[in-house]
């Protein structure tokens, strides 16, 4: 229970379904924060919701694990010039690894969360599917879950639109019913941003911004680590007046390459072998899938290539994807069902 409306309602609904329920809030970030879900005010909200529902509530401290699995890799990835997704890492390592393990040790049968996604079951086989609310769908951040985890996961609000969730919250008398959604990375202060967070921890690298086609230096940045492949914000248009996109970031050499969209688009994505994770069977060579490369990114059709290293051949050109990002694959015949996930490798 993060103290937000979704997990509050999830707790209320599983209780109404007749389960024996205990609320748990994860204390993840020990540092300063002005957003996200770890502030004392949010824990107080979660606790008050549990009291309203009449269930026990516990606060579990995972600050060490969060630092080790989420914050440190986040900082390290920036130093290496890749773009990690901390929310995916948190879901994977904290919520669905450490917490699941604890739930088992403490004698629980299942974990329920307030994610907007659905677990479908046919003949004892579980599938992860998109949430019913397209705008809120979180199947992307859960893409790494396997059968074993899905079998003991309840997602009570996954079949609802956000508006319905709020109606339930009001019906249940939960104080969080009109609480705004959190959007930002929870351990970064919204008022100071990612740059300030990184500067407190590492030295950022000034870099030249270079036109990819001509090699001309067209600008500079004081932090190559903050540039993400595919990014347009903050990049000046070229002499031709057209928009420019980040094509490549080389932190070590202090170089950021930019180009026109047609110069930087990609038609295939390499995958990090060790990161491959599939809900069930892995797709075969030349199987088709739908892929999504960010939380609410565009869905693109792709063919799986295994010759022998793993890649995805896109059926239409797409904006470049930064190494370190996660790509989630969905079924071509059932576009809402997750096949698996992997981390994007360097081109």
């Amino acid at each position: 229970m993060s103290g937000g409306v979704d997990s509050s309602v999830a707790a209320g609904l599983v209780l109404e379904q007749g389960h024996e329920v205990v609320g748990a809030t994860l204390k993840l970030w020990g540092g300063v924060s002005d957003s996200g879900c770890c502030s004392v005010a949010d824990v107080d909200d979660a606790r008050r919701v549990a009291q309203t529902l009449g269930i026990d509530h516990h606060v579990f401290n995972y600050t060490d694990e969060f630092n080790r699995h989420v914050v440190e890799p986040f900082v390290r990835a920036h130093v290496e010039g890749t773009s990690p997704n901390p929310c995916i890492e948190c879901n994977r390592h904290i919520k669905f690894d450490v917490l699941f393990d604890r739930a088992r040790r403490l004698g629980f049968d299942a974990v329920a969360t307030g994610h907007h996604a659905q677990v479908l079951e046919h003949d004892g086989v579980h599938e992860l599917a998109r949430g019913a609310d397209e705008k809120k769908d979180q199947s992307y951040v859960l893409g790494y879950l396997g059968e074993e985890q899905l079998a003991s996961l309840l997602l009570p609000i996954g079949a609802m639109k956000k508006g319905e969730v709020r109606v339930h919250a009001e019906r249940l008398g939960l104080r969080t019913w009109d609480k705004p959604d959190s959007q930002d990375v929870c351990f970064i202060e919204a008022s100071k941003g990612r740059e300030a967070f990184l500067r407190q921890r590492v030295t950022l690298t000034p870099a030249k911004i270079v036109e990819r086609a001509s090699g001309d230096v067209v600008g500079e940045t004081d932090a190559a680590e903050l540039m993400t492949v595919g990014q347009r914000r903050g990049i000046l248009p070229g002499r031709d007046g057209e928009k420019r996109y980040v094509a490549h970031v080389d932190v070590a050499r202090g170089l950021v390459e930019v180009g026109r969209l047609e110069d930087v688009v990609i038609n295939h994505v390499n995958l990090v072998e060790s990161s491959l994770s599939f809900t069930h069977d892995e797709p075969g060579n030349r199987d088709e899938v739908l892929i999504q490369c960010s939380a609410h990114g565009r869905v693109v059709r792709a063919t799986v290539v295994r010759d022998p290293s793993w890649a995805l051949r896109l059926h239409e050109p797409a904006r470049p994807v930064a190494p370190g990002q996660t790509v989630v694959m969905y079924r071509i015949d059932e576009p809402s069902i997750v096949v698996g996930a992997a981390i994007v490798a360097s081109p």
Partner: protein
Amino acid sequence: MTEQLYFDHAASAPRRDEVADAMERWQHGVVGNPSGSHRAARDARRAVEEARDEVAAFVGAKPGGVIFTGGGTESCHLAIVGSTLAHRATHDRSVIVTSRVEHDAVLDAAQFAASQYEGVEHRLVDVDAEGVVDLESLRAAIDPDVAVVSVMTVNNETGVCQPLDGVSSIAMGTVPGGVSTHTDAVAAAPWLHLPTVTASMDLISICAHKIGGPVNAGALVMRREVPLLGVVPGGGQERGRRGGTVDVAACVGLATAVRLTQKELVDVNDRVIDLQRKLCAALSFLPGCAITAPAARKVPGTVHVTFEGVASDEVLFLLDQAGVCASAASSCSSGAAITSHVLAAMGVAPERARGSLRLSMGPETTEDEVDQLIAILSSVIYRLDAGA
């Protein structure tokens, strides 16, 4: 509902019936403002002054030295910040010296003063592996700029007693004219004879809810007149050290709690020390268990242990399910158990500190309860150990 086994006296002790009864008179109808001049005010003032006499006797000071406060944290804050502000009025530099294992009431007050006032510095003194203040480290921290030295009587997490006589002789002997000394005696009050053990200290903080009194009631007791500025001057109550209308019920509650504590002190010590011995002996057989400090160093009420490879959160959850109220002894304002600064200062490895557990007892704890606790805790630890 499972029967409740309460082993968290160090967090807050059960409220004594006599305390509630004594406070009752001051919680209904007309309760005069003790600063006033009419009949109702005089009645209230008399109750406050009678309470002051009892608190003074409990600590071993003159009634005029008792400053009623809103609890232990406020008492410590007043001692640290008030001493520093008074020192700062006549000095360019003011140093606050505390041990590393103080309660946050002291550490945060010192940090607050150091960050808010120019020329103020906070120096931390090391402890040994058992959590006892290292007197050589203390000696090294003291110089003529020191405004106040604060070392707790008993540690709230581990129950370990500190060598206050050594602290004060160093504080007195190192600087000509001496320096002010403060001790947070909140965790000591249920167990030790404060007139003896805190005899060498100038300022002593106590609170009521660790000895069966109400929360938001405490006192800073000044044994010898030392420079101290009030931090809430408004109204001039408590001789200008703590402004605001004095809470008669709180003073009466505190006084009743100290009176009963003092009366039972010897008997309770004799009885609970046997329970502590029994509990420690049983726990030492559990897998991965280490007793944090030897019993000879501790007050009888506290048993502090760490379990290797097990998280406090998990132990506390299963204990709670079984009806046992206990604590990891260090938690943040969200309620999450956090790595203890006390254990860190003692050099306890973080893997071990993660599995810390404090079981704290009080006057009404019975042997039967201890037996039940041992059975429940053993099954919890065996279960977690098997699942690891």
